[in-house]
């Protein structure tokens, strides 16, 4: 991967963080301010990305939407990873029968497409930001759990672990200090990739009206809102869509770069 691609991704991620943590810096306006007189303005100097049907500034909304997207992406990945660590570790260290049971459950979950499972979960909980996080988190957990399990299984028979056994360390300390951290290290690259994926799914759920509800500035929801006006205000969908693509691509590029680094260690 070229150096420039990595630098570009780092810049995009940095921008994204600024957007999420201090959106006012880049877009001082109010993302919810309605100005019907200015509805459907084309992108221009007054409104970089144009305005929507209520005259809200798309640029301001895209910037302010980053926070939600980042939060959903991170929280969902954290939830998925957290669950995966517990399930994967328990499976790897359990007696064979319990390992088999957990594995079969994971495989069953794995068989359902993640997005479908997210929809299923939301069917129970009802739409909203919280349920979107839970839905995306739960649907990514089985994949991570299998990876954690195989990492821990190979580590648990390593000389490193035997050495700590001989030193008399308790099982819990071995799991906490050595097994989990070393199992997660090579997964960090995947997690970065996963964040990009989670952002896309969260946006997809909002697009379907199952995540963040309008008029909150969420990329997926904005994409959906613009769908109706696609023929006369293409910018309403294009810019939130570009934002999603930019985040997903940069997360992927950085994840790959991390992956290469982990391998070379």
């Amino acid at each position, binding site marked *: 991967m070229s150096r420039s691609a990595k630098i570009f991704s780092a810049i995009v991620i940095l921008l994204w963080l600024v957007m999420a943590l201090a959106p006012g810096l880049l877009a001082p306006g109010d993302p919810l301010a309605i100005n019907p007189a200015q509805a459907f303005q084309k992108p221009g100097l007054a409104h970089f990305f144009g305005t929507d049907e209520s005259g809200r500034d798309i640029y301001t909304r895209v910037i302010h939407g980053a926070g939600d997207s980042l939060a959903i992406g991170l929280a969902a990945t954290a939830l998925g990873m957290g669950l995966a660590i517990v399930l994967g570790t328990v499976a790897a260290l359990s007696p064979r029968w319990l390992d088999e049971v957990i594995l079969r459950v994971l495989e069953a979950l794995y068989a359902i497409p993640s997005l479908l499972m997210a929809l299923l979960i939301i069917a129970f909980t009802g739409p909203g930001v919280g349920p979107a996080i839970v839905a995306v988190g739960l649907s990514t957990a089985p994949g991570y759990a299998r990876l954690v399990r195989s990492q821990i299984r190979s580590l648990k028979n*390593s*000389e*490193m672990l*035997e*050495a*700590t*056994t*001989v*030193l*008399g*360390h*308790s*099982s819990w*300390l*071995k799991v906490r*200090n*050595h097994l989990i*951290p*070393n199992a997660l*290290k090579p997964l960090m690259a995947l997690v970065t990739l996963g964040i990009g994926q989670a952002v896309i799914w969260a946006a997809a759920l909002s697009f379907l009206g199952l995540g963040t509800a309008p008029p909150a500035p969420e990329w997926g929801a904005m994409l959906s809102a613009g769908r109706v006006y696609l023929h006369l205000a293409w910018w309403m969908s294009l810019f939130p869509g570009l934002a999603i693509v930019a985040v997903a691509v940069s997360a992927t590029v950085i994840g790959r770069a991390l992956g290469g680094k982990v391998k070379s*260690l």
Partner: protein
Amino acid sequence: MSEQTLITLKDLSVSFDGAPAVKNISLTVSAGRVLALVGESGSGKSVTARSLLGLSGGQVSASELTICGRDARNLTDSDWQKIRGNTISMILQDALMALDPLRPVGREIGDGLKEHSSLSKAQRVQRVHEVLASVNMPDPELRAKQRSTELSGGMRQRALIAQALAGNPQVVIADEATTALDSQLTALVLAQLRALKEQGRGVLMISHDLAQVAHLADEIAVMRHGEIVESGPTAQVLNHPEHEYTRQLLQAVPSGVPRFAPLSIISAPRPSAPERQTPTGPLALSATNLSKSFGKHVAVEQVSFDLPQGKTLGLVGESGSGKTTTARMVLGLQKPDSGTVNLLGERFAPLHEPQRKQLREHMGAIYQNPLGSFDPRYSVGQLLTDALSGGKSKRDQSYSQQVDQLLEQVQLSSKLRSRSPRELSGGQRQRLAIARALAPKPSVLVLDEPVSALDVSIQATVLDLLDQIQLETGTSYLFISHDLSVIEHMSDYVAVMHQGKIIEQGATASIFGSPQEDYTRKLLAAMPRL
């Protein structure tokens, strides 16, 4: 035999990105002669050998480099390709790594012929069989069709040598071809090299161990820091070494050196004549009728031994003889099918881990590859703090003083505390492993091939350290090795393992002086001595 010069090398220098690795080396390899290049890792011996194949990868300069009458200083890559395998070839170190596990060895050997000769396919197959037969491979036709993983260790080494010989080269380079092999395989490779010499080929042998080359080499060149510090006929170099470093290397060879006599010149001064008390109290370690099978394979069968306090029991045998399985059962890492292990008179195995919690701290272990036994995320200081705190913390500053004491005990600088073990040298890593094992103040240390991956000169300092620790702390050692000379030097008692059984055990002097079993005699005969 008239001595025909095959390789003349004058003033060879090789540098990598401006950093010199080899400086002004001159040597000659003659037909029917063996030249040994001896030195520790990093001394530039492998770089020198690779330069003779055009493989050094650095900037090479020499005032003369003649290979079989041909000036090889300005050869292109494709010129080198024609020479390699045909005129000059190399026996690699690790048979398991060097042979493709997915292809029959016959094809691996024949590959070179395809490149270098105009033989037809049938002729090539014929030649492969000939070469395999020439290295005494049993059933060459059958073996040629098998993959390297299907061959025994000895056959694999033979295949590797056959590969180097396929193109009938006049010069063969053996780069650490016996390192890490057990004594029988070493003897096999040495015998093959001797055969090459008798066939009139020139052999350049590279090793870190003077004892390995002593009987075969006609001449020895000792390398250090990229330079040849001493060279001459073997007898002269071994018997009348002129350079300080040569003497150091000679002293590092443990065979025949009495117990507790230092092997390294630079080792710390030790209490004069070591007075060792006769042990009192219970046996440090006692194993009774240990057995372990994996499926149908019997790994260990009815193994019993006693280790008195403050003494060393050497467990010796070839790879696959069951030494490591025995060690793992003793350490409580593998549950024996039957039999017991007692530590300080109390039952240690088989027991569940919580039941032997009180005894755990009395048992320590040191492995062949220390790096594999360290958590890669921990620094030197953190590893020791982790061990001292029983795994509760890697940063607790209250252990700081004890960490320094441990480092001092193994003669490591406390400046290394914040380093990663990856940045340490092999010898330093093993010292760190020893320091960590000593943290709980164990009564028994199980050392599984602790010096097998080290150069002889580094091995000497680590063995000296182990001696010193035993004298100071009275720790008992179960010392496992395939290297008889190390076992002889380190052990008070010796147990010889073969095919999962202890076939002979007793005091070191009696086992080495008057072995009763044929197998022990065979092992001893294969042992390289100065």
